[in-house]
């Protein structure tokens, strides 16, 4: 009955440090904090699953509790598992269904082109979504592109890629594919400048939004698909992603949370800046021109969890003329789809307000961050333009 693989709750010494650093329990008392929801309650839940309480849903899975824990307890994992293991969903939840089906919605939206962007910005639609779908009026969804990144890649870049002797596989993820194909273009060009040709395998949503919304079986299905498509051929190539949360899922959550065998890909997956940093260190540094930009850097929670912040900073510090203000580590509060829900909206803003004020204080020209939803949150609430580190590198190569 007890899952022997994760009895890390038994290592908890009740020091309460996790609760003190939990961005959600700082913002609201509705969430009793990771210690109580995680290791404390887990013992009770094992005995009696009915003791699962509704407050679990407030956890954003930012994993900051795991970062600060001195005893290496997998707190977020415990909470995340408990959330959906015991809570049985009986009804169809239209909002959560569509929000987590990034492939389905993205595919449809890009098919019909700009019209979706137009409709979704209409006041009346916003009111309808607010009332019927519990999507807060204030949020701004990212615009959909007219053409998916895959199509752009096939049309504009694919042919040239074989000319490179070194190759890598790009895991673009849904955001690049449906919302921001420019980042994808930039990634391809940066990699080409480093001497790498790009291959793209078939892929589905990595599963992060599905897990967050409780569609665990569907997430598992996607994960199997992704593992399969990246292990049938080119198994000697590295898989590089530009989304920090996708990377974390492919590397860790497929095995630790979804209990799948991802050994065929876990060692090959790498977040973009880590890959680039290693190239830089080995002396493969393309000529760059000074940027003359003052930027603030925000480190996303999941990147921090996988220890990737030093690589992003490593790359950014090698770009000439980039004046970098590294912001103290704070959660932005959006947590994927979390902040796009009415019941969480206030908490999400309250979590993010520390970060927003740090950004204002730093007086940058732009903000840099690795995560697409952090970008959305910061752009919605500060008015600053937010760019990906790869974009910054691209600018340095081409200005």
């Amino acid at each position, binding site marked *: 009955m007890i899952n022997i693989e994760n009895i890390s709750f038994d290592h908890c010494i009740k020091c309460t*440090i996790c609760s003190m650093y939990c961005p959600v329990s700082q913002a609201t*008392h509705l969430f009793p904090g990771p210690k109580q929801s995680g290791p404390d309650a887990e013992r009770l839940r094992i005995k009696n699953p009915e003791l699962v309480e509704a407050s679990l849903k407030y956890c954003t899975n930012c994993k900051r509790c795991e970062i600060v824990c001195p005893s290496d307890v997998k707190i977020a994992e415990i909470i995340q598992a408990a959330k959906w293991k015991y809570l049985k969903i009986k009804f169809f939840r239209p909002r959560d269904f569509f929000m987590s089906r990034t492939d389905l919605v993205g595919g449809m939206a890009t098919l019909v082109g700009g019209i979706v962007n137009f409709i979704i910005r209409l006041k009346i639609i916003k009111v309808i979504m607010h009332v019927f779908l519990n999507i807060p009026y204030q949020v701004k969804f990212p615009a959909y592109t007219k053409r998916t990144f895959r199509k752009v890649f096939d049309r504009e870049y694919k042919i040239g890629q074989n000319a490179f002797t070194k190759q890598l596989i790009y895991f673009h993820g849904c955001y690049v594919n449906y919302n921001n194909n420019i980042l994808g273009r930039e990634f391809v060009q940066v990699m080409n400048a480093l001497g790498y040709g790009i291959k793209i395998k078939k892929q589905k949503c990595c599963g992060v939004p599905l897990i967050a919304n409780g569609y665990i079986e569907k997430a598992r299905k996607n994960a199997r698909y992704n593992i399969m498509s990246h292990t049938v051929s080119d198994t000697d190539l590295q898989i590089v992603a530009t989304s920090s949360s996708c990377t974390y899922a492919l590397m860790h959550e497929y095995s630790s949370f979804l209990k799948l065998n991802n050994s065929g890909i876990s060692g090959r997956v790498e977040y973009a800046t880590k890959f680039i940093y290693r190239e830089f*260190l080995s002396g493969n540094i393309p000529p760059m021109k000074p940027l003359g930009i003052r930027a603030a850097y925000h480190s996303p929670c999941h990147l*921090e969890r996988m*220890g990737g912040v*030093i690589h992003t*900073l490593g790359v950014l510090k090698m770009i000439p003329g980039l004046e970098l203000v*590294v912001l103290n580590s704070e959660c932005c509060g959006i947590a994927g789809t979390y902040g796009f829900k009415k019941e969480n909206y206030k908490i999400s803003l309250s979590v993010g307000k520390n970060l927003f004020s740090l950004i204002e204080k730093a007086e940058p020209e732009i903000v840099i961050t690795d995560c697409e939803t952090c970008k959305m949150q910061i752009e919605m609430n500060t008015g600053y333009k937010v760019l990906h580190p790869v974009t910054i590198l691209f600018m340095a190569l081409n200005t």
Partner: protein
Amino acid sequence: MIYDSLIIGGGLAGLVCGIRCVSSGLRTAIISGGMNSLHFSSGSIDIAGYSPEGKIIRKPFDYLKQTIKENRGHPYAKAGMRTIRESIKFITEILEGQNIRLNHNSDYNHFHITALGTLKPTYLSQESVFSSGVKDILHSGEKIAILNFKGFRDYYPEQTAVNIKKHSLFRNREIMMGNISLPYYLETERNIHEFRSVDIARIFETERYLPRIAEEIKKASPGAVAVSLPAFIGINNYSAIRKKLCEMTGKFIYEIPVLPPSILGLRIDHALKNSFISLGGEYIAGDKAVSGFITNNSVEFLSTSNSGNVPLDSRFYVLATGSFFSGGLMAGYERISEPLLDLKIKSEKNRNRWYSDKFFDRKSHPFLGFGVETDNNLSPFTQNGKIVKNLLCAGSVLSGYNPVKEGCGGGVAISTGFKCAERIIRELKK
């Protein structure tokens, strides 16, 4: 080489070392697996509290001079008197820059009061624990009050009062106890019984309820010149909040550290981290150094649980991984070891001699004095007795002192951390 100085461990020793390195322009990173023990500390910094016979030391620096002369293996002897003085000045200035004032009693120790009502000698304390105001109150002999928030379960003022009365400083003094209640706060759905000191500290941080809290304090402590509260009057903005409360109540507000996480300790932690990051240091949180490679008697690179095929590389490394609790030292069945690089350890062979049968033995437990053996420059040895040239050790991973018995953990952490940084700066200048 990626870094000039890579510090393993983000506690007091690591942070002091990191700040010193980065402030002299070195590219510095700190790896920290989980939060440090400042979160469990009193927030006061001890230099030397007790003599080997268990007597309270009144003048710590005089005692240090003697220790340095007589006990060459002590980390203080390796740091040296000048470094100890400089490091204390350094951390005081750093914290002052972050709005945390550390006070001391010129050459003398002062006492801080624990939640159980015992008095511990220490050297540096925050304003709410020691200042000239405290001295005046102690001399005046006037009434003091020990207060708590009604329903806060992590602290019992009665216990403090009973024990504090046993001390000569408080024997003939009138001490009153009381409760203040917490104003209705936001949409609190939780009972105050569930609140920890951090929750209450956050309420103070909003500053919205200060006038009401001040009224409550005045009502609960009529006639008292000083009032003690469990330590939770704010975190980042504590200094300003306390000043306001003192003005509003006309009383001296004293803080007593309660169950972890300790607010007094984490103020110092936050301030040091802020300082490190704002100076340009890279703080790698939630990552653990898992293995290092020594070739030709120097550390070549270091792997962490996240580093994968990009190991961390630095010109100098500082081992500030702490003692047993933090994983800097490990006790097996037959030997004590240093798990990261398997450095040479100073300990007892016979397991029976590792500990005392009495938990609260006055002579303390011998294992607290175990640790990595170093040369006079704080460089450790490999198992074959070779000095590791580019590695330095700081803080409680060191052997040759017993922080609990001597009451000197903070001072050793700061002075050895500082000493490591000074040595790295000097060697890189060559």
